[in-house]
């Protein structure tokens, strides 16, 4: 059995930058405990001397490089078209270094 508990979940929320409601937390904790207990079955598989899968394409996998050339990418207005808040052609966010 895993030692996944409420404290682990709270740590995870911080790492994931997700806050959950108390109600959500109860459901997520129950589910995650079950899932983590389940995935622990992998421990029984003998993987001594087995390499990690680096690419599913095996020998067909190629490193792809390209010339570093300036191309037409997104215009500023396109880039900003989905921004939740903007000012003068830039994305606006609350103060980072100085809060109220």
């Amino acid at each position, binding site marked *: 059995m895993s030692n*996944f508990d409420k404290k*682990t*979940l709270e740590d*995870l*929320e911080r*790492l*994931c*930058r*997700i*806050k*959950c*409601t108390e109600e*959500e937390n109860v*459901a*997520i904790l129950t*589910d*995650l405990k*079950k*899932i*983590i207990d*389940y*995935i*622990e*079955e*992998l*421990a029984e*598989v003998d*993987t001594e001397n*087995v*390499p*990690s*899968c680096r*690419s*599913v*394409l*095996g020998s*067909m*996998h190629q490193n*792809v490089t*390209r010339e570093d050339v300036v191309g037409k990418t*997104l215009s500023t207005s*396109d*880039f900003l*078209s*989905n*921004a*939740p*808040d903007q000012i003068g052609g830039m*994305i606006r*966010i*609350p*103060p*980072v270094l100085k*809060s*109220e």
Partner: protein
Amino acid sequence: MYKFSAKELRDKFLRGEVSAESITEYFIKRIEKFDSQLGSFLCVLKERSLKKAKELDIKRKNGQKLGKLAGVPIAIKDNTHIKGELTTCGSMFLKNYRAVFNSTVSNLFEEEDAILIGKTNLDEFAMGSSNEKSAFFPVHNPWNLKCVSGGSSGGSSAAVSARLALGATGSDTGGSIRQPASFCGVVGFKPTYGRVSRYGLVAFGSSLDQIGPLATCTEDIGLIMEVIGKHCPKDSTSLKIPQEEFIGKGIDKQRFDDVKVGVPWHFLEDMDDANFKSFKESISRLKDLGAEIVDINLDILKHSIAIYYILATAEASTNLARFDGIRYGVRSEVAKTLNDIYDLSREDGFGPEVKKRIMLGTYVLSSGYEHAYYKKAQKVRTLVIRAFEEAFENCNLVAMPVSPSPAFEIGAIQDPIQMYFQDLFTICANLAGLPAISVPSGLSKDKKPIGLQLLGPQTQDVSVIRHAYAFEKFLNFNNLPPLFDKE
């Protein structure tokens, strides 16, 4: 008009028997009439598709060359970009997001004169096996409206099944094209990893994700693959394979003579009786078509789900870190600091399943646990790939069921592990990067479709599709759902 295949309708258009505009109006009306029962579309691109149709009619009138999918209404899963249109991913986080560039598949469809008719519903960020996890509304199965359409490409499977579009795209990370295709009685194909460009697909599990087609028949799957199965420099995992003919010459004579089909009998022992019976009947049909059935050992696949829920969630937790409420998507209105923006926007924007998977992915990658989970899973993944390599030394194709049971009722599965078991037979193709197709193989006693899955070695996409075509033709199964077999 709804009874035609994509190829038949294209040919009618090319012969001038029907205009692209009337095709488009017809399918838009069909969506307006029927989709309230299904919920398969998140948006209908009425203006865009009618504009394209008018252009096609002019092109045809002027004798200009027309593309391979000229006049065919195609739906795009709503996690794939069409420039200027919404891409919601079935999530509140992106409810107002408009794509600022075209995905490669959307480009290729438009170049070949398909009519992009709408964006289809999905489980939020493609995370689900039933389409109940869409943040907007669930999708209902055209064969039985009380049942799920499968997931995560359940909008695409329901739309094609009810003939609201004659082809659609899906994305398949662990079975998300094949399982909904089997639930809705249509054909769904997951190509070899890298065969179709993922550029413009919102990433879920990048080492597993693959875009592929859903259609009413295998011939249309081949036709769509000829359009979208192309090398793309914008996707670094895109394979450089020369253009292939997926259906083409001699297809009518395609059989299974001299073909060895491997079946992992031992692995399949614990299946639902009805689906297992149907699977055995399909194997008999393959024998009728000349196949030699050989027993293969794929017992390692019993670990597929554990490997998948480590790797897919690890990759998802990384991929979904970009949704921070800064550059696009929702931003919490009550957030006062930068940290609040991250925390509260992600709280508001993501649904419970997505939150759960991000947390699981973060957990398996976190210091102290990485070796036990993520690295271990990558090693067992190697064993899955090796098991298939060994199997394909003794057979040309592998046959398996698509899912453990036919479509279940909405709300029937609440336990997460039970839901994840929906993907028991499909995940392996993603773990090993193999091409795999789901083709209808009949109906259960209570009239729900069941599918047969055929898998081939990497890059053998053509062989998988051609043999599925032979099976489909031999079976001659009517896959039109009775509820929607009407004007």
